[in-house]
């Protein structure tokens, strides 16, 4: 890999030992990829918190040890200075206020709060959400980023037209300290063009249908770049957030084009940009049903936990749940958690949405989700969710069966304790 003089200086330790470790990792990583060089970035979204039991031993050695090992792949502990690039923290394992509802030990909460205070003072902005683009980190078209969180990455590339690969905990740590990331993959314009032409043959409009389409498509195209055409109603942030998250769960989709909607595809021709079409796919009623059946693994219709808000809900989604619940009470056997970024929860609180949800017996949670925290309410046997991503991951992570459906069906399950969802 070719390094600039400034990068060589960092590698040689002229800016300090942490930058040297960071540059060493970027060189090893870049060479593994086959990258020819690094690119400058000033927009990093990563995972720097110490909120899980598995980091407990490292925390005893101090937060420099945590960052050195987990964010720089350096067993040698180096002192971590302020971040060089603008950096934010993605979702974490603990809601700082509602940790008792989650069932998390106070010792871990204190550990996370100490970690946040430490890394916050080094310039890591504690957005604590999987959707930084909902709370102020909205990169511009063409901006080189180093983001983790597969649902945010696919949104960043596809909807915003900014450029990032799916980075990891270690590469974002190195990028935050050096302002560099390998110039590979989605940083390179030619690699951003479509590979698969998808003809959507059933109407896709509501959030659930965008999730089903994404879930079906991700499994087929894996990490390729689908171009969506056909019976698509013009989507919104919420629908594309849901679609991308699903496609990045069943597969590894990091970029897609919706001609006429997303910024690098005014039409189908521009979406492919002369690249050969690898395959043409059709999404019809049978494919839709297959995705629905794959996401619904439960058989017991008695639901005791309803989870909404993955990726974290937009304020409109919180408002929708609040409206559906207003003046009603949850079934006594059911717990309802609604997840939204901390900053949007402030708005929901101010608007009275939080009160509407809590008056009904629900909880408005931030900072985390059941898949990340690995916590559901104690005694949960059957889960219902409106998120294809949670429906994909929770059976593996928590070992529990999941129903997947619309937000209305989920709220109804929360009110009745019964799952009555079905594919319309």
């Amino acid at each position, binding site marked *: 890999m070719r390094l600039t003089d400034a990068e060589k200086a960092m590698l040689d330790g002229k800016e300090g030992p942490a930058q040297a470790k960071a540059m060493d990792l970027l060189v090893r990583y870049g060479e593994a990829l086959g990258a020819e060089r690094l690119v400058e970035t000033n927009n990093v979204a990563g995972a720097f918190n110490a909120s899980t039991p598995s980091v407990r031993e490292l925390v005893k050695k101090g937060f420099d040890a945590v960052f050195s090992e987990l964010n720089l792949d350096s067993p040698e502990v180096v002192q971590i200075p302020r971040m060089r690039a603008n950096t934010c923290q993605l979702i974490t394992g603990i809601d700082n206020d509602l940790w008792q509802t989650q069932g998390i030990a106070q010792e871990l909460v204190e550990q996370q709060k100490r970690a946040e205070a430490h890394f916050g003072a080094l310039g890591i902005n504690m957005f604590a959400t999987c959707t930084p683009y909902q709370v102020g980190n909205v990169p511009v078209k063409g901006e080189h980023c180093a*983001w983790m969180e597969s649902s945010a990455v696919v949104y960043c590339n596809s909807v915003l037209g900014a450029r990032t690969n*799916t980075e990891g*905990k270690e590469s974002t740590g190195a990028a935050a300290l050096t302002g560099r990331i390998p110039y590979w993959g989605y940083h390179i314009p030619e690699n951003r063009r479509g590979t698969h032409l998808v003809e959507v043959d059933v109407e896709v409009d509501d959030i659930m249908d965008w999730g089903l389409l994404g879930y079906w498509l991700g499994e087929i195209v894996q990490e390729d770049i689908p171009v969506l055409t056909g019976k698509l109603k013009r989507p919104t942030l919420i629908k594309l957030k849901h679609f991308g998250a699903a496609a990045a769960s069943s597969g590894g989709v990091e970029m897609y084009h919706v001609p006429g909607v997303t910024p690098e595809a005014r039409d189908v021709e521009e979406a492919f940009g002369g690249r050969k079409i690898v395959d043409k796919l059709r999404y019809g009623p049978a494919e839709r049903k297959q995705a629905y059946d794959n996401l619904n693994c439960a058989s017991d219709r008695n639901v005791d936990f309803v989870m909404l808000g993955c990726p974290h809900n937009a304020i409109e989604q919180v408002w929708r749940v609040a409206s559906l619940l207003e003046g009603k009470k949850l079934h006594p056997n059911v717990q309802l958690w609604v997840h939204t970024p901390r900053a949007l929860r402030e708005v929901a609180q101010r608007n009275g949405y939080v009160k509407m949800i809590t008056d009904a017996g629900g909880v408005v949670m931030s900072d985390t989700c059941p898949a990340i925290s690995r916590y559901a309410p104690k005694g949960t046997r059957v889960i219902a969710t409106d998120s294809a991503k949670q429906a994909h991951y929770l059976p593996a992570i928590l070992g529990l069966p999941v129903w997947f459906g619309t937000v209305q069906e989920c709220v109804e399950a929360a009110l009745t304790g019964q799952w009555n969802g079905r594919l319309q």
Partner: protein
Amino acid sequence: MSIAETRPNDTIVLHGRKVVGGVAEGEALVTHDTISGWGGINEREGTVIERRHELRGVSFKDKILVFPGAKGSSGWSAYFHMTRLNKVNPKAMIFVTMTTKIALGAVVTRVPAITELDQDPLSVIETGDWVKVDADRGIVEITKKAKGV
């Protein structure tokens, strides 16, 4: 079998590109499914946990893991990183499709890793074969397991 050399003792040799250097040998564990790190493996036991995965419940600890590549969450590298800290990591990785997840994951797992082989490793290698990975030289040597036992 046009490109691979077949040695007298039924050893098949494939050539590829080093991802992470080093040499390791062991029993192959082959899957045709891509693997998720976060949400797809248990990092304390070194097992695959994804519900519809063909290796669900199977441990990759000390195996030569042969797979198409990585999918899913960006926690891929962090979770394989933790398999190393928990000493349940695979001994080496052989994969087909390069992504940032697998590249970084292999780097931080700190095991020999190789890709771009001259034949499809998922067709040539079967679970139970004895595999030697010399990533520095870009060579994979496969000794087929005994048949009909």
